[in-house]
């Protein structure tokens, strides 16, 4: 039984695609069969982050419009056997997505035996974002610890609770998870940034992961290697923990306290 997880946020630039890529890789590393779909039609990014941009022949819109079979459009990841990418179309606009088409593709992916289907939502609350979340079983809401991102996430959570198939059918709704990105313990300590508890309080949800602000994320995007594959990165460990929690494991949070400065560091400043 395939589980559909939407990665969404409302606000742009908070790390949805980075998170989609790392969660997809993390699940696949654990042997799950994973398909990750880019719903940001016209602004495709996921293939860049996954490092398969030069192998896109057919895309999501082609499958929806019947130009090709699903199998022709699924791009197999070079690193992990069980991971596949369905890229967005660069040349179409978001109207090319239809509810029936998305439903059919998700159904075909489930029939192919995928365990997880990760839907990378575009920013905003319009058609692409709506269709990305509509058929979801679970949602990972990516939020930066700052007020506008938190406000937009609240809006998205409202839509998840009302305008999704599970909400409309009344079978328990979409299971919601918060994932904080760009978290800087130092800036929280100095009062410049909202703390995990502030965000939890306002949104009334538990946190499935806290990814520290890290230069490794940008570097990973540029290199086309999802950051979770970086062996020396705190952000990668944080994503691994988030994947474990998504699978129901109880993992303590790391990288949420400011590292203690050593004697010399304190003496000479930062």
């Amino acid at each position: 039984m395939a589980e559909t997880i939407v990665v969404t946020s409302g606000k742009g630039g908070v790390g949805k695609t980075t998170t989609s890529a790392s969660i997809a890789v993390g699940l696949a590393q654990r042997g799950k069969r994973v398909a990750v779909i880019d719903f940001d039609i016209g602004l495709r990014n996921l293939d860049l982050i996954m490092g398969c941009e030069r192998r896109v022949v057919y895309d999501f819109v082609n499958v929806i419009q019947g130009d090709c079979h699903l199998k022709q459009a699924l791009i197999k990841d070079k690193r992990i056997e069980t991971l596949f990418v369905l890229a967005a179309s660069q040349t179409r606009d978001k109207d090319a997505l239809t509810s029936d088409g998305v439903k059919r593709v998700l159904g075909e992916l489930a029939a192919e035996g995928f365990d997880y289907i990760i839907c990378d939502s575009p920013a905003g609350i319009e058609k692409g974002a709506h269709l990305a979340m509509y058929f979801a079983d679970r949602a990972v809401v990516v939020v930066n610890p700052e007020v506008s991102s938190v406000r937009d996430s609240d809006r998205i959570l409202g839509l998840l609770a009302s305008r999704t198939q599970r909400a409309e059918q009344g079978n328990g709704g979409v299971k919601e998870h918060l994932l904080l990105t760009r978290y800087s313990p130092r800036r929280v300590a100095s009062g410049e940034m909202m703390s995990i508890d502030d965000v939890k309080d306002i949104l009334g949800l538990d946190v499935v992961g806290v990814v520290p602000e890290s230069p490794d994320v940008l570097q990973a995007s540029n290199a086309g290697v999802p950051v979770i594959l970086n062996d020396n990165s705190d952000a990668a460990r944080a994503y691994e923990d988030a994947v474990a929690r998504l699978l129901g494991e109880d993992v303590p949070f790391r990288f949420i306290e400011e590292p203690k400065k050593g004697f010399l560091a304190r003496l000479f400043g930062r």
Partner: protein
Amino acid sequence: MNVGPTRGGQPDASKARGLVGAPTTEAESSVVDIRYGQVGLVHVRVRTTDPGKLLDDLTGRVAAAPHFFRRTAVCLELSSLETPATVPEVQSVVDALRRAGMLAVGLAGEPDAVGGLSMALNLPILSSYRTPTRPVPVVQPVEAPTPTPAPASASSPEGHVPAQIHQQPVRSGQRVYGRNRDLIVTSAVGAGAEVMADGCLHVYGSLRGRAMAGAHGETSARIFCQEFYAELISIAGIFRVFETIPSELAGKPVQAWLNGEDLRLARIG
């Protein structure tokens, strides 16, 4: 001028469903389905037919809750007029309501009283809302005393209208309305969300959005919340915007009530 909601049509939902006349199989081939429906209907009782006075009064109320009156279907009640209204007078009232955003869809009252107006203005007669159409239960459930013994609301002089209970968080952009009753939210109301009730409003969580009680002019309505961070509080159209939250109230359990024209807030406990 009294604006109060009422229910139009059959109150018994179980009887109100189902097709009239044709069984379902025939209905599928028919081009018209006729069903009993049930819709909430705002009731407008006028005490004057002067359109200028009506508009003055209405624009203030509509401004307090613009979205709830935009193209709202209303039932017009004329029984509070001192002298029986003429057709042109009622027409001017209907026009004034329309300018305030409301669409009159019927007249309240008994056929012998408003029959002529109904024919002349082409507006159907909707049964008077003061007539209890629902049997009043013999055994009243024992109620804990409410903090404000609200006078029976216009729509149900005897019947007890249970509060509307909302258990999910009210998120930014969402709106929950306890039409003709109290609203109890057992979760948080987010910034940019809107909770509204014709009666009292209770929020057992943090209140960061807008809260409006007594949305149809009930001045004894109150607002209660567990953690106060509201953007706006309004009772019976009298409102206060909180650009900054008073430090003695921030995050505290707070109630709000009207003292005359004065909107008061205080910590509870």
